[in-house]
């Protein structure tokens, strides 16, 4: 059936520049280009274009421009082009609309409504180039109080992980992303001294040498996990929900389950890898406590156990339950968190912005006097170092980045991860495509990103006259809101600008 959808993007080719080298044809994994030998011309199928910009970046003569298609329906504030296109696609297929990455709707971005403080006169600002600045972050339960016995300070031996910078790579499974990407994340985490998260896709044997920089995940599908998996890692994470699709499970389509993936996940080739919506052994906080302690038993209480949920309406109460269930670290993932595949309707409509959820959870745990029982990690749409600084001032111990890390590897957020055709070689298992990420170059790009952000965080610390990230944690006096209503300032626990 011929589709009634308008092409989303236009390919504009400058024929004077084009040398018919066919790079665009080889680079495009969505079959937009083909070569007409008779006329020595490149021809286009624009309806296939996803605007990933692989062709335009690699065109040696800069002959290609990919832009929004000029075709338009009659402008209508209610029936936007997106809503018309989505509806027509569903009328043609009868299916649930799938998409990739995080919510792209113009929800209020609270990071952009928060401003930072700086020292002027009354306490001096610090130059991070000449004075030491501490970004080291320890995740895990902290002691309730100090104990001194026989003149010695005794510290309880709660398990922990140390990070050189409060930025970690969030859970992206091998299967969702290519092996080269997965390896780049592992190597970069190792080089920087932070952590990467395996997600729920198993952990290839040859990458276990990076165990001290690895968080392994136990999600509802329980793929690829055994006692060695937990004990080889530095930290174990129970995934209950993720920001892009709160309340539903995961689903790696059978065509992505290749031989190596099948081995790593320990499932047959070509079979769907379905992670059920809930863990069917967890229907309550008491059940969660049971799994948390099962994993602690399995690791002889030597690994911190974290629990990750999506930012949802009553996240503070749930977080309190998670901490009381024994989680050493809790992770809250906001509505802008990315994914390889999610129903569009959920991605765009379910969950909360992480800024609000984070502040609400931190406040609640402080009110209950249990904030030190667990570290708090937030994720979901962290775009730059000031987002991280603001997150820490709102109460986070550290952040996960996912989409940002993939962008360092080439991602342009075209949102077609679920097709498995990623032209940048990131969310694909096609050997031809996945070679496009060189693990060594990828590692360097990620290391560069974390280095740059860490330097910027030090600049912001110096600016505030603070020399340790510990002194920013939950220090909401560093923040002022602008363009926010009273209730929003109240949830964030910050004052308005000028107050």
């Amino acid at each position, binding site marked *: 059936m011929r589709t009634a959808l308008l092409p989303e993007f236009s390919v504009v080719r400058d024929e004077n520049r084009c040398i018919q080298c066919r790079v665009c044809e080889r680079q495009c994994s969505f079959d937009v280009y083909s070569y007409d030998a008779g006329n020595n011309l490149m021809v286009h199928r624009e309806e296939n274009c996803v605007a990933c910009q692989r062709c335009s970046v690699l065109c040696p003569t800069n002959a290609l421009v990919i832009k929004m298609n000029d075709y338009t329906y009659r402008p209508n504030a209610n029936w936007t082009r997106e809503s018309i296109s989505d509806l027509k*696609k*569903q009328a*043609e*297929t*009868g*299916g*649930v*609309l*799938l998409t990739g990455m995080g919510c792209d709707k113009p929800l209020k971005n609270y990071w952009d409504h928060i401003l930072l403080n700086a020292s002027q006169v009354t306490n001096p600002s610090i130059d991070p180039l000449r004075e030491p600045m501490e970004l080291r972050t320890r995740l895990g339960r902290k002691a309730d109080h100090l104990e*001194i016995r026989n*003149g*010695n*300070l*005794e*510290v*309880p*031996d709660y398990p922990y992980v140390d990070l050189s910078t409060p930025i970690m790579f969030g859970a992206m499974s091998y299967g969702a992303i290519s092996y080269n990407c997965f390896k780049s994340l592992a190597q970069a985490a190792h080089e920087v001294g932070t952590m990467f998260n395996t997600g729920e896709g198993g952990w290839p044997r040859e990458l276990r040498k990076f165990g001290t920089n690895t968080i392994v995940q136990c999600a*509802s*599908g*329980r*793929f690829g*996990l*055994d*006692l*060695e998996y*937990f*004990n080889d890692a530095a930290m174990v994470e129970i995934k209950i929900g993720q920001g892009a699709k709160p309340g539903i499970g995961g*689903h790696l*389509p*059978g065509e992505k389950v290749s031989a190596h993936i*099948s*081995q790593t996940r*320990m*499932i*047959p080739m*070509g*079979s*769907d890898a*379905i992670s*059920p919506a809930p863990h*069917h*052994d967890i229907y309550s906080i008491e059940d969660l406590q*049971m*799994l948390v*302690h*099962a994993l602690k*038993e*399995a690791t*002889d*209480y*030597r690994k911190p156990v974290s629990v990750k949920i999506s930012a949802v309406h009553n996240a503070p109460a749930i977080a309190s339950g998670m901490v009381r269930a024994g989680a050493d670290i809790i992770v809250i993932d906001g509505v802008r968190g990315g994914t390889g595949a999610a*129903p569009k309707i959920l991605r765009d409509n379910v969950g909360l912005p992480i800024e609000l959820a984070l502040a609400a959870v931190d406040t609640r745990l402080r009110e209950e006097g249990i904030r030190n029982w667990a570290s708090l990690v937030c994720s979901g749409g962290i775009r730059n170092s000031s987002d991280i600084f603001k997150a820490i001032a709102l109460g986070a111990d550290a952040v996960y980045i996912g989409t940002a890390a993939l962008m360092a590897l080439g991602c342009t957020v075209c949102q077609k991860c*679920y*097709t498995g055709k990623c032209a940048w070689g990131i969310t694909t298992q096609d050997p031809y495509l996945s070679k496009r990420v060189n693990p060594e170059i990828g590692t360097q790009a990620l290391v560069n990103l974390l280095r740059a952000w860490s330097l910027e965080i030090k600049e912001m610390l110096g600016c505030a006259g603070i020399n340790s990230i510990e002194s920013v944690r939950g220090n909401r006096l560093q923040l002022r809101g602008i363009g926010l209503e009273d209730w929003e300032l109240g949830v964030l626990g910050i004052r308005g600008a000028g107050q």
Partner: protein
Amino acid sequence: MNPVVITVKTKEPATFAEKLKKKVAYSPAKWHQIDAAGVHYKDLNRKIRAMAEKGARKFEIRNVFGQRYIGTNLWGIEREKIKIRIHGTPGSDLGALLDGPAIDVFGNVQDATGNTMNGGKIIIHGSAGDVLGYSMRGGEIYVRGNVGYRVGIHMKEYEAKVPTIVIGGTVQDFFGEYMAGGRIIVLNKFFEDNPPQRLSYFIGTGMHGGTIYIRGEVEINQVGAEVGMTEPADDEWKIIERYVHRYCKAFGFESRQAKLLKREKFIKLYAKSSRPYGMLYAY
């Protein structure tokens, strides 16, 4: 003034190789007796592990009363040789993540027995609670009596690793949901001829692999839409015979075995597709 000495107690674990070098204090051949009365599960499990590290392989634990996670921390040792006999009622998550040891329970068990089990054997001389064998990926579980709800959810298999559960009595709802591999054999009330109080429903919903063999009748409205029903094939019947034989041997029912193994009484439930949700989405 004297400086304050700060001692941070850290638990740097010795490697297993180092631990195994320690003097062997326990005989591997002997059944070591442990009294679990009033012992917290953490202490009980640590004790078993510590003894196993010093050479013990056989454990007889008495007065077990609600202690969880027995067998969970037994890794890195010669775990295939470990045998545990439990007298009493162990708590939830018995043998969670179990990978090798054989556990005999002379009593009933609570919820989530064999949770995400990877290998080994659990024999239950009684009945089991809910979520037995959740996400099980290897090994065998035998239950003499009945089991609760959500049993065998999301079991999976990979190559030669095929987990198997044999249940002597009845099962409840959501049995074998999301099953992706492995096999479950349900023998349905063969030694108590009482009919079950109620039928179970939602059997095999979302099933996309594995097989369930049920001795008795199953109505079409009891199973999920993804489930097909047929008779066991010849090679499958051999598997059923083998496991029913092991079941009877484990619980001393050899004399009833012939009565139990009437092929015409068995139904096989299987996944119609390994891609049950393949047609759900618009791309």
